[in-house]
């Protein structure tokens, strides 16, 4: 055997190797085969236009899957069946996807489909996302699917066109980084807090050029939902890829889902998936170690996700003009305890934290309590299936009784394209992934947090530590 064959390989390298159609050379990137191409209304219309101009049809509509989420209203249709689109352009964009999918025979979860939802939520939910697959989408949070041991990454619209036309992308192999979370999470701390702690540690560009593999006991102990939250946030550290080795939990999650293999094919698939985890003694280009037991509930206080700190802490002294500018925008004084910041709005949703476990976590804090007067709270499930499951266990009543709004599924206030947004100057505690200036509406100040922290903040009307709520109800359960 050659040295190359005996060299221990990481999960990433195994998947990369198995999908190379044409090897990378110094003069050109590899031609990488794509097993699943997810599309949505925002980043696809211009790609379809390019294909139309060249008279090219989608090569593998059977490996392509579409959903509506970004511009899609989360309020129901009126008495005439008209959906409250934010603008005519938003409606036109949704209609363009419906038309393009029809013309290209691409399966689409349409507006009335009970399986419709956020692209990174429906992939795993339907069993389309599987270990060992290469998955792309014109969306940077495609890294979410890496939670299943898939090689999943975001691409731009030109590349969406490439994949539609050829089922391949041109891609250079990134470096590998392993982030190991040792120890066990404390009560009231979840995957979102792990993600924010990591980004604060390595920086918003710390993962630039790397594929991250999350490992260690605290990652193994996460539910699949928690692993998705963690991989989702890889891009906020600059990494296009985040992944976790598949294990029994992964297989259990996928078993019996609509697009999961069945019968003998299932057994074969699982046997194959068991070969995917990184070999012992794999060498990574960079190693990061984080003590999970020392992570408290985290929030962000700046305008970049790496400006994250413990929720019970204080705003730091700005160290540069840029940090000063961020602090002015966020209206945090140096040394101000975060718990003194008044909250105007709370958003519980997005592909980061809108799954059933996230909604249960928020509901456990809000149950039999009232949202603070003056605070607007939006709870937006990640998919229609999650909405139905949450309603089946009456979680919607917990939110409604508390004074929160319960919406249909979609991206909603994560990107504020569908009319769901904050007002200028408002402070929004949000379970989404980006606190960029204006992300949730012009002039909106975004504080990223876990569902538990967001729910506690809704109750108190200020940035609040969720831990007292867990002990008050006598619950010592972990968030994930």
């Amino acid at each position, binding site marked *: 055997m050659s040295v190359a064959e005996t060299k221990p390989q990481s999960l990433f390298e195994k998947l990369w190797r198995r999908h190379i159609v044409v090897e990378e050379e110094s003069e050109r990137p590899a031609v990488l085969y794509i097993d699943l191409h997810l599309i949505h209304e925002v980043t696809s219309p211009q790609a379809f236009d390019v294909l139309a101009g060249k008279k090219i049809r989608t090569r593998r509509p059977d490996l392509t899957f579409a959903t509506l989420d970004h511009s899609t209203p989360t309020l129901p249709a009126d008495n005439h069946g008209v959906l409250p689109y934010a603008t005519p352009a938003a409606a036109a964009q949704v209609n363009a996807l419906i038309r393009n999918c029809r013309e290209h025979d691409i399966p689409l979860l349409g507006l009335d489909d009970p399986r419709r939802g956020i692209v990174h939520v429906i992939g795993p939910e339907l069993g389309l996302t599987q270990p060992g697959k290469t998955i792309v989408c*014109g969306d940077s949070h495609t890294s979410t699917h890496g939670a299943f041991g898939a090689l999943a990454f975001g691409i731009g619209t030109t590349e969406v066109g490439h994949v539609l036309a050829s089922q391949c992308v041109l891609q250079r192999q990134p470096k590998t980084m392993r982030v190991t979370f040792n120890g066990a999470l404390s009560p009231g701390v979840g995957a979102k807090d792990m993600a924010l702690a990591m980004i604060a540690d390595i920086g918003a560009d710390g993962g630039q050029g790397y594929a991250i593999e999350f490992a260690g006991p605290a990652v193994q102990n996460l539910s699949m939902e928690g692993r998705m939250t963690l991989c989702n946030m890889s891009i906020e550290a600059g990494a296009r890829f985040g992944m976790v080795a598949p294990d029994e939990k992964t297989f259990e999650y996928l078993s019996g889902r609509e697009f999961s293999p069945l019968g003998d094919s299932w057994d074969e698939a699982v046997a194959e998936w068991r070969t995917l985890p990184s070999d012992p003694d794999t060498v990574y280009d960079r190693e990061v170690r984080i003590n999970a037991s020392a992570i408290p509930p985290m929030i962000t206080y700046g305008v970049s996700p790496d400006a994250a700190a413990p929720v019970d802490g204080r705003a730091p002294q700005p160290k540069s003009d*840029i940090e000063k500018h961020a602090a002015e925008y966020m209206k945090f004084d140096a040394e101000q305890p975060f718990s003194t910041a008044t909250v105007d709005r709370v958003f519980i949703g997005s592909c980061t934290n809108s799954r059933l476990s996230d909604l249960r976590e928020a509901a456990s804090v809000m149950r039999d309590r009232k949202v603070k007067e003056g605070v607007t709270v939006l709870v937006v499930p990640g998919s229609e299936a999650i909405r139905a499951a949450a309603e089946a266990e009456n979680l919607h009543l917990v939110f409604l009784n508390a004074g929160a709004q319960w919406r249909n599924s979609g991206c909603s206030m994560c990107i*504020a394209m569908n009319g769901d947004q904050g007002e200028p100057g408002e402070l929004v505690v949000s379970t989404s992934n980006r606190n960029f200036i204006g992300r949730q509406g012009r002039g909106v100040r975004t504080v990223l947090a876990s569902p538990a922290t967001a729910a506690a903040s809704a109750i108190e009307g200020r940035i609040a530590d969720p831990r007292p709520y867990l002990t008050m109800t006598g619950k010592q359960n972990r968030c994930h």
Partner: protein
Amino acid sequence: MSLKSFQNLTSRVIVLPEDNIDTDQIIPARFLTTTERSGLGKAAFYDWRYDDAGRPRNQSPLNLAGQGGHAILVAGSNFGCGSSREHAPWALLDLGVKAVISSDIADIFKSNALKNGLLPVEVDRKTHRRLLKAPGEEVTIDLETQTVRFGGKWQAVFKVDSFARYCLLEGVDPLGFLMQQLPAIKEFEKGRA
């Protein structure tokens, strides 16, 4: 779409010293409900260029974009982080920006920019610091030799992915290259079936 070619460019620079300028700044999400790729220049850095009432902010250096040869943007580190929206390079190009210089530029933005003929130029920290202090400076970017020159004798090298550079210099569309690989792609599919 045939790719626009890029040879070299001499232009004055606009400086935005902020680090981590994300794609939500470059084009706010509310402008993404479009099915077109043209005409997005108005939306470029909209909230930086216009106030809450939609009035132009007179002091914004971006007002110079495209005017009097201001086609190069010098920005703080980690430029273009955030979402994968290709609307960001489309908007910049429509505004008249043809190249962005920074110490590091986010991966997806870089890849999207190169596919549209907007050149992402990553220079060493010393050159970067120098350029951040030089709004209005005339800078030459030469893609053939991958050098940046300014201020008489200042010269720095940069590296663009060799394939992207070839496509830009020759005006080659990578989609055409991919379509030529179809026999190999079909072979690959057979091997896995």
